[in-house]
């Protein structure tokens, strides 16, 4: 009796809450969450694995060096996607070369000047609106715009003098509109993340806003701008509607206009991988699925590479920000996903 009284009282430690104490409905919801999370991984894995298996089995080295050729029935050896591949690179370069300076300029104005206030708010919602405009509508707009006689220097004209409006430069300009919101969004975010003391230090040295922007702010948000540009490139690479309407269907070759090497190509027509896939897909006019798989595999590889680049750049800019602000690196910055804007 006395022995038991001498025993220390057992301490009941609060244990970690376990799922088993939850009501059934809550446990079901928890299970659903897991199912959805795993389901997403399965879907992504499925897409990539499918394109890998189908693509690699359909891929031949000759596809990379041959131009698209007509001949639906001779699928085995009738042309490859050399021209679409080059076209993808050209259109991406043109589009992003136009979108990046414009986007950086707009974002800078929005963050650093933004006067008058109402205009800034309107422009902000305008960027949002542009981000929501379907690319097919952009294509309709571009097709009409660049077929005006005043833009005849940008594309070929038919024999009766009507401007076709189909060229790399025209499609690139419309692609730039497509990529613009992404560049503006990331640049804006990067500029907003810079601490106020960087601006103040520059102002204290007697520098104007313009100088501060050029010498201090833009160099410090380089990685943010770069990731915006890469996101924009991803968008451009994958877009099909604008290419089909403004550059050429998937079976066309790169045809320059006039003799000048670079300008001629830019003013000429061609096609890209995405349009090539659309054309040769089982529902398309070309209907040679194997070519579509092979090209789809290559396109997916390009997209994956761009994706990896964005991840690297985002992590790096997170690290830079952390270094500037003197706080630990934030690994899971969900709210800062650049493309969610």
């Amino acid at each position, binding site marked *: 009796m006395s022995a038991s009284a001498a025993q220390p009282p057992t301490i009941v430690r609060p244990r970690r809450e376990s799922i088993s104490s939850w009501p059934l409905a809550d446990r079901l919801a928890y299970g659903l969450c897991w199912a959805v999370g795993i389901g*997403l991984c399965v879907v992504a894995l499925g*897409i990539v694995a499918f394109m890998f298996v189908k693509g690699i089995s359909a891929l031949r080295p000759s596809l990379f060096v041959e131009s698209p050729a007509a001949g639906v029935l001779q699928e085995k050896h009738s042309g490859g996607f050399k021209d679409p591949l080059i076209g993808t690179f050209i259109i991406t370069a043109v589009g992003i070369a136009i979108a990046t300076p414009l986007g950086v300029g707009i974002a800078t104005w*929005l963050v650093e000047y933004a006067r008058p206030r109402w205009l800034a708010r309107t422009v902000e919602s305008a960027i949002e609106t542009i981000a929501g*405009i379907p690319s097919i509508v952009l294509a309709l707009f571009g097709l009409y715009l660049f077929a005006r006689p005043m833009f005849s220097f940008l594309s070929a004209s038919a024999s009766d003098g009507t401007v076709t409006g189909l060229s790399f430069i025209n499609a690139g300009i419309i692609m730039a509109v497509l990529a613009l919101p992404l560049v503006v969004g990331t640049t804006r975010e990067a500029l907003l993340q810079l601490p106020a003391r960087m601006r103040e230090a520059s102002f204290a040295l007697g520098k104007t806003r313009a100088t501060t922007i050029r010498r201090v702010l833009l160099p410090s948000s380089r990685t943010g701008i770069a990731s915006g540009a890469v996101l924009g490139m991803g968008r451009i690479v*994958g877009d*099909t509607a604008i290419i089909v309407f403004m550059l050429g269907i998937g079976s066309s070759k790169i045809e320059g206009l006039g003799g000048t090497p670079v300008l001629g190509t830019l003013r000429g027509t061609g096609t890209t991988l995405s349009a090539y896939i659309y054309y040769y897909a089982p529902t398309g006019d070309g209907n040679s699925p194997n070519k579509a798989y092979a090209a789809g595999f290559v396109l997916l590889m390009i997209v994956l590479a761009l994706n990896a680049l964005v991840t690297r750049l985002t992590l790096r800019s997170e690290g830079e920000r952390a270094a500037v602000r003197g706080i630990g690196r934030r690994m899971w910055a969900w709210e800062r996903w650049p493309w969610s804007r």
Partner: protein
Amino acid sequence: MSAEAYPPTIPPAAPPNPLEAHRQRHAAQLAGHLKEAARDRRVELALGTLAAGTLALIAAMLVTVLVNGWPSFAANGLGWFGNGGDPVTQFRAMQTGTALPGHPLLYFSAWPLIWGTLLSTIGAVAIALVVSTLAAIFITEFAPVPVRRVLEPVVRLLAGVPSVIYGLVGLLLIAPWVEGLISTQRKEAVQYVVQLSGEGLLTATLVLTVMILPIMIALTSGALAAVPSAWREGSVALGVNRWRTIWRVSVRAARPAIVSATVLGTARALGEAIMLAMLGGGRPWAPNPLDGLTFFFEPIQPLAASIVKEFGDNPNTPIGHTVYAFGALLLFSAALLSLAGWAVRQPLKRYGIGI
């Protein structure tokens, strides 16, 4: 004539006037400042013009699609939105240039296309709303760190896959599976009205769901992650379990983000053209919910997909006007939805969530 002294005497320099020197220095400095300030103003003006250019761009786009689409609206009146005959014959009439008897050449009734757009969009958004909310909760609250580390790139990947690849995968994975669900009996029962194949409402909606998921997940999980942890801790301290805390506190606080994600997902689903042109079934058709299960297998051809499928390259033809009218409808809906999404997200800025 006076003789000049040689060598000439150099007049002594004026004694340095500190005040004058200061004035000169000051004037030079001021001139420099003024020049810099003027440059600053020029830069501001240039960048401001650039930014205002986006407004001009939107205005130009609206005018373009409206002006080119107007003949189609004008020729049909409100009947444009109604249900009157088969769009296939109407498109063919416009292509051949022979008007249907008793109708103008531009006669068109877009209801089957609008109905297809509505069905695929609403279906995809309804599924994606549930899935994206659960996925966002999983990512922000339940997923162990390794799983989370996999999920982030996975969602990014799903956002980055081009729509033409979604179309390809849908054609080769989903469509055969859906086709397997359709019994021969069901096919034969309707074969004189419409051909059923693997491509149709169900396939298109499923793939469309996957396509709009990433942006919805990103917006929702961003808002969930930004809910002040004190709010959740308060709830947990009262003995509420984790799921109910998330459901009653976090999700409720993130409601504006969920609404805005839904709105943006809707805009994206409306505008998807290429994938729906590949997976819709290739025929403008209005699936009838009264057909029972057959409803899910009937073909659709939404507005955006119709632009891709029917348009040649000349806006100034009957079919061009019709297609630009589709574009006008899409542009208006997309612009309204984007603005709505933007407006809904404004209250979130109070919590410092600048999405």
